[in-house]
């Protein structure tokens, strides 16, 4: 046999399960009259989110008019433009790219199931994600917890009223591996507590967990809303299962001015942290100005779902060829 390791990183059995999963996801959406779309991978604009690192390349690189194109980190912006143009319920199974993300649960190139629903509200979309997981992956019905409830239960703080200093103290208290000079902002501390303190506990709940109503400062592209007790929260949810973060969804913000402001704030944060600023997607903003219908949307990592279904510990074991063998 050849010395060079050319073999797939997934077993042929797992690749067969992958093919079946792709077919099952399509069947799920076709049965619900959700239309399949495919949009460009290369874009002149890129998301501004500070901790999302886009790959880029040049068109006609040797010419004087060489132009930079970014590989999508998700098909979100293009799909929203399709919604603004009049489509209502669409899905896509897309290759997406995130630079510098490599590990047991991360491959810089992976497959995303992303869908948008003009005919479903926030709760309706969460229920549909739950239904999809039951239908294509035979997972048990999900349990729902608000972000605030999880922090109350596992960290013993009220995230809506707690000040930054006490959140920081909690983090040092509960995460022994943190070096004493660790610095970050409020959301940074909350994210650390979420992944180092709360997520390990969620593993023991044997159903998918849908966490909803994130802090308003972590809204990303979600609408803000008032929760049951009157606090402003982001209409954003995340799905966890078996120790994996599977999906992220929004009741989409349809206010172009608000989004323009958030993109700008992101770029300011990038500048402060010495990260490159990103070209804002002006066509997305134009389409939203012309009218993005009320809609909800979610992105779900297909590879991680397959890891869960086939009980593989590492993402490379569910991909034909891992990053190091590509």
């Amino acid at each position, binding site marked *: 046999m050849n010395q060079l390791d050319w073999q797939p990183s997934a077993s042929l059995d797992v690749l067969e399960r992958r093919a079946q999963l792709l077919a099952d996801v399509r069947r799920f959406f076709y049965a619900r009259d959700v239309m399949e779309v495919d949009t460009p991978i290369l874009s002149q604009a890129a998301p501004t*989110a*500070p*901790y*999302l690192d886009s790959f880029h390349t040049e068109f006609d690189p040797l010419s004087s008019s060489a132009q930079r194109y970014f590989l999508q980190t998700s098909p979100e912006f293009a799909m929203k433009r399709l919604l603004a143009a009049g489509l209502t319920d669409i899905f896509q199974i897309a290759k997406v790219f995130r630079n*510098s*993300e*490599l*590990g*047991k*649960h*991360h491959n810089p190139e992976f497959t995303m199931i992303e869908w948008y629903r003009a005919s479903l509200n926030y709760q309706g979309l969460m229920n549909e994600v739950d239904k999809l997981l039951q239908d294509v992956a035979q997972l048990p019905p999900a349990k729902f917890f608000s972000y605030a409830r999880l922090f109350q239960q596992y960290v013993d703080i009220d995230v809506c009223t707690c000040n930054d200093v006490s959140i920081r103290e909690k983090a040092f208290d509960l*995460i*022994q*591996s*943190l*070096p004493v000079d*660790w610095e*970050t902002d409020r*959301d*940074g501390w909350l*994210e*650390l507590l*979420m*992944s*180092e303190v709360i997520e390990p506990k969620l593993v023991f709940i044997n159903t998918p967990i849908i966490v909803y109503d994130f802090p308003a400062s*972590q809204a*990303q592209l979600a609408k803000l809303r008032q929760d049951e007790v009157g606090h402003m929260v982001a209409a954003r949810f*995340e799905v966890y299962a078996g120790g994996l*973060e599977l999906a*992220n969804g929004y009741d989409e913000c349809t206010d172009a001015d608000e989004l323009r402001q958030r993109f700008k704030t992101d770029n300011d944060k990038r500048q402060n942290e010495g990260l490159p600023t990103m070209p804002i997607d002006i066509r997305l903003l134009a389409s939203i100005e012309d009218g993005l219908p009320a809609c909800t949307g979610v992105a779900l990592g297909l590879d991680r779902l397959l890891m869960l279904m086939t009980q593989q510990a590492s993402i490379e074991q569910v991909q034909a060829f891992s990053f190091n063998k590509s």
Partner: protein
Amino acid sequence: MASYSTNEFKSGLKFMLDGDPCSIIENEFVKPGKGQAFNRVKFRNLKTGRVNERTFKSGDSVEGADVIETDMEYSYTDGEFWYFMDPTTFEQFGADANAISESKDWLKEQYVYTVTLWNGTPLLVTPPNFVNLLVTETDPGVRGDTSGGGGKPATLETGAVVRVPLFIEIGELLRVDTRSASYVERAKD
């Protein structure tokens, strides 16, 4: 010494942390939601032998540690240091009690040990998996009993005590597994 960014972290990488040389046991890349990525690193402090965890911001870098592992022959001890010789350069290195703590029961002249050097100083001496050692003390053997059932303690020339079958006598050479500190068989020479 070179520095390494978190993307180069992998098990076995030797790096400096808080002034001590350490070796990575496990490295995990973590990205919480849409937040800043970090690395959860399990490592061994090579000076103390202790295993610990540390969180690093992804993209941070650490200084490499000048740590190498070499095979060396054990020569002798003066009570304070245990001396090992590099068989190619004949250079001698003195290891202190801390460095030989895992191997002191198995030190025999002319045997080859793996010596971990940091800036030229032995940090850790690891014994070979098997060594042959003489029995210096044990209860009289039971002739004819070769079943090996039951067993008895025997003290070896290095001071180590292992359980041996009843038929083993003082002066016999035994093959011993240093990882489990257990008798394997009678040795030929």
